């Protein structure tokens, strides 16, 4: 019986009463509310979280590694007359276009699949701010990755033409490069949307592969076989519209209208819905 009431019982009962009456000096009594967490800090934290796991480090490193491998492949195997910057840009750009959306997917879904969202969202209860920080970081990585790729392509082109003993051919304009960056930024948004809607790494990655690699030949076949679909395709098929950016920066207004319509329908609406649900979903 005595073990139940002493010393913890009486000891803390005294302190408890003291705190309530204000006589007891509590180490926590006079605290003022801390300053809010600035958005810049969230950006730093989310950027850090992209690199601080082994898988994250390698995913990021693979952007650079694949760019180098693709350049080396062009130098070694491309016919001499095709050693142009355009070839390097295409070879380096492809792995980039595949990888960047994956990075965006994982940055969102890992909070759920790895369950560290439990800590993330208790430290920052406003999930929208966390997701916004992730979006900014993913875009930064995409643009940064593109610059790395462009740089590797430049080195490859210089090296390739030097080995061939020809002048380096620069056949990619600033407009072309801008279009490619825009295409990749849209790709990142696709990954981000899938991550926010599905909140599961495997599901979102499969969704991404289906959209990017399964859907494309299907709609191509459909467009080839059915004239009505070929007519409306530029207005309904986001992949079809986005992929044209890799061919150069379109100048006609109709193209941009098509890009706007398909992006709003297939990316922005689902993303808005996904974010709305993400704000309410249980974090377990």
């Amino acid at each position, binding site marked *: 019986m005595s073990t139940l009431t002493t010393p913890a019982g009486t000891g*803390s009962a005294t302190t408890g009463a003291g705190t309530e009456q204000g006589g007891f000096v509590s180490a926590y009594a006079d605290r003022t509310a801390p300053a809010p967490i600035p958005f810049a800090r*969230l950006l730093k934290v989310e950027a850090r*979280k992209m690199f601080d796991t082994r898988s*994250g480090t390698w995913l990021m490193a693979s952007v650079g590694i694949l760019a180098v491998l693709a350049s080396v492949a062009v130098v070694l195997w491309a016919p001499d007359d095709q050693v142009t910057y355009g070839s390097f840009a295409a070879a380096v750009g492809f792995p980039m276009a595949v990888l960047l959306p994956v990075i965006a997917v994982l940055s969102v879904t890992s909070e759920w699949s790895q369950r560290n*969202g439990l800590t993330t969202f208790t430290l920052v209860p*406003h999930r929208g701010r966390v997701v916004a920080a992730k979006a900014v970081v993913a875009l930064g990585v995409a643009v940064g990755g593109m610059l790395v790729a462009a740089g590797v392509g430049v080195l490859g082109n210089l090296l390739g033409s030097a080995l061939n003993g020809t002048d380096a051919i620069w056949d990619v304009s600033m407009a072309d490069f801008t279009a490619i960056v825009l295409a990749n930024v849209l790709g990142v948004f696709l990954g981000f949307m899938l991550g926010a809607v599905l909140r599961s790494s495997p599901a979102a990655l499969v969704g991404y592969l289906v959209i990017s690699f399964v859907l494309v030949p299907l709609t191509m076949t459909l467009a080839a076989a059915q004239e009505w679909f070929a007519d409306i395709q530029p207005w309904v098929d986001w992949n079809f519209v986005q992929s044209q950016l890799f061919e150069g920066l379109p100048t006609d207004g109709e193209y941009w209208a098509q890009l706007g319509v398909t992006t709003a329908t297939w990316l922005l609406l689902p993303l808005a819905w996904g974010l709305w649900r993400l704000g309410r979903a*249980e*974090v377990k």
Partner: protein
Amino acid sequence: MIEIHELTKRYGDHLAVDHVTFSARPGRVTGFLGPNGAGKSTSLRILAGLTPATSGSASVLGRRYADLPNPGLEIGVLLDASAQHAGRTGREVLRVAAETMGLPRTRVAEMLDLVSLTDDEAGRRVRDYSLGMRQRLGLATALLGDPAVLVLDEPANGLDPAGIRWMRDLLRDHARRGGTVLLSSHLLHEIEVIADDIVVIGHGRVVAQGTKEELLHDDRTLVRAPEVGALAAALTAAGWSVERVDPADPATGLRTDASLATTGQVALAAGLALLELRAADGAGLEEMFLQLTADTQRETAA
């Protein structure tokens, strides 16, 4: 200070949390006791803003969780020690949390030291951690911002006896310095040894709450004897009420409203030997808790 008012969470037609109201006060350790599946974790998740409530409210230091400007500095939460990115090292988990809260990196080393994770252990990835190590890492994360309020879901899970002892001292010390501690457990003993206030929950409802003294207090006497039947008859004959602690197991003895001295005298007069004679303190709480647990187990089995 934590205040939970009429908190309710409904999943389809299942009421996981049913109008739960209680508060955890500064300077005290509040134990949240209930069988598995009683609604403890759901209540705590709602408190931490991770699960939306169907109705009712929960506040920390007078504010909704979502309105805390930098929650880690005001409330330390450990809901599930295993919920960490498996590929991060323990030290990195703390660094990310410290950076989010805006704390200096030196704080990370202090916390690792406090929870006795060695340099080598802190450098390992969380996937290679034992449950006990994860629990220590989780506690370190919760304590990182030196918050006034601590909320811990089953913190003793996976800790060895020395670790449990260490954690109890840590939490009691936190309360002694004026902090608020709310911890849950499905083990009565775990709560009994540490809590000042106890809230018992079953089937989503609060079934009892009060200070430990109030809940454990029982005027009756507990007595065990080899010949339980004869003793029960003797006490009944003397005009006292008698009740078997566990009708299925005579060795658990009897509870009677006769005093300690009277019970002894009745036994002496009847020539009966005793095995144990003491105040029935805590018996009521234990009984209620066993009943709750048995109900839950029946439901799970059915």
